[in-house]
């Protein structure tokens, strides 16, 4: 971890692995989408609409995963003063917010034919919505504070306090009786979902993860470039 603290070294590594990650991402999406749209059977109850799951569920996983990444990066920044951790946390937020929005939107589209309503206020949906608000609040902090060092300090605290919500989202379907179905993949005693649907779902989950890694690396690279530009501007002003 300390090895990557040097932005130049990090950039070198990121540039080297990025093409491979993009190729893996595209490959996984191709396999996952084929599995999801063609080989997976329609559900005996839900019919073809079950295919929304292959977009919806991984997006929801990623929304939680990205927030956890953000909180972890914030903790690393707070404890080790790792110079890139703040940048990693900062650029993860918009990506996570998009995943969060995607899961809310596809969930809404799925909910209309299945539950008869676009939106219901039950525990899973509400806590997911709160997660969306946390993402927005975190981004608002970065936008509102001009001085980057102070913004980083404050953003770490906001990210870590908001992390309390992540386990609430994960277990909301177990703690409350909810309209949303309970966990059927990552649960004690193994998945309850049928194999023909499970493998495309897991492949899609992996594809989303690699997509996030790729987008994250690109954004960190952009953030480092933005910092350099800022430094150049400041030194130009100093030269005058």
């Amino acid at each position, binding site marked *: 971890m300390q090895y990557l603290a040097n932005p130049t070294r990090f950039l070198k590594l990121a540039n080297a692995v990025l093409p491979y990650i993009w190729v893996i991402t595209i490959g996984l999406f191709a396999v996952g989408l084929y599995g999801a749209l063609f080989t997976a059977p329609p559900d005996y109850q839900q019919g073809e609409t079950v295919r929304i799951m292959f977009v919806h569920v991984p997006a929801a996983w990623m929304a939680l995963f990205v927030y956890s990444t953000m909180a972890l990066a914030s903790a690393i920044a707070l404890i080790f003063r790792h110079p890139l951790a703040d940048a990693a946390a900062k650029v993860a937020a918009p990506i996570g917010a998009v995943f969060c929005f995607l899961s809310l939107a596809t969930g809404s589209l799925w909910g209309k034919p299945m539950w008869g309503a676009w939106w219901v206020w039950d525990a899973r949906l*509400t*806590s997911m919505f*709160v997660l969306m*608000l*946390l993402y*927005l*609040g975190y981004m*608002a*902090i970065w936008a*509102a*504070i001009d001085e980057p060092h*102070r913004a980083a*300090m*404050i953003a770490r*605290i*906001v990210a*870590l*306090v*908001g992390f*309390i*919500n992540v386990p*609430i989202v994960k277990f909301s379907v177990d703690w409350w009786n909810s309209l949303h179905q309970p966990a059927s993949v990552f649960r004690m005693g193994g998945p309850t979902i049928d194999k023909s649907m499970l493998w495309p779902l897991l492949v899609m989950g992996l594809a989303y993860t690699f997509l996030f890694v790729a987008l994250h690396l690109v954004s960190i690279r952009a953030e480092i470039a933005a910092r350099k530009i800022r430094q150049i501007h400041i030194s130009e002003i100093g030269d005058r």
Partner: protein
Amino acid sequence: MKLILALIRRDLVLSYRQGGGAGSALGFFLAVVVLLPIGIGPDQQLLARIAPGALWISLLLSVLLSADRIYQQDYEDGSLDIMTMGPVPFEMVALAKSVAHWLSTSLPLAIAAPLLGFLLNLDPATILPLGIAMMLGSIALSLLASIGAAVTVGLRRGGLLVSILVLPLYVPVLIFGLSASQGPASGPEIATAALLILTAITLVSLVVSPLASAAALRSYLK
């Protein structure tokens, strides 16, 4: 301990003598409660059903509106700088200020709210559970407001940002506070369980809030 009490007393005296503390928060609360039946219509049964929720939301908003006063003045006139150098750990300073905010604003509101429930045709049987839940919950509300206030203390337009940051944290308090207040309607077991969870939320925020607030304030004071 003596110093912490002195800090709390100082804040209480300041908020009492300056005016605009508990008084204006109560005024805001009253205004919301009066506006609500006008907006919804004076249907007594409907009002009785939504009364606990309406009171809780008014409480959240009033506490949130008064949140920026927790640190703002002391930050601007430099008192906080001096407090960082004092013998009291800065986390305890933050805790003392949150406690003072609770005593001066949230607690009076929590006591007044069930009584204002008469305006909304609140079921008399829910007055006691509502009062207990609100008193417990208001501690958590003040502590969480303290995090929001500390995080935005140096910003010129921090007011709206506080709402975006703190309202998501208020959601669990609202959910469990509400189900604890509806004792007769939902049955005693559920109300007790909700009250216990509300206590747990309060205890967790009691630990998290001073740490987070102090860390945020420090980064502004540097």
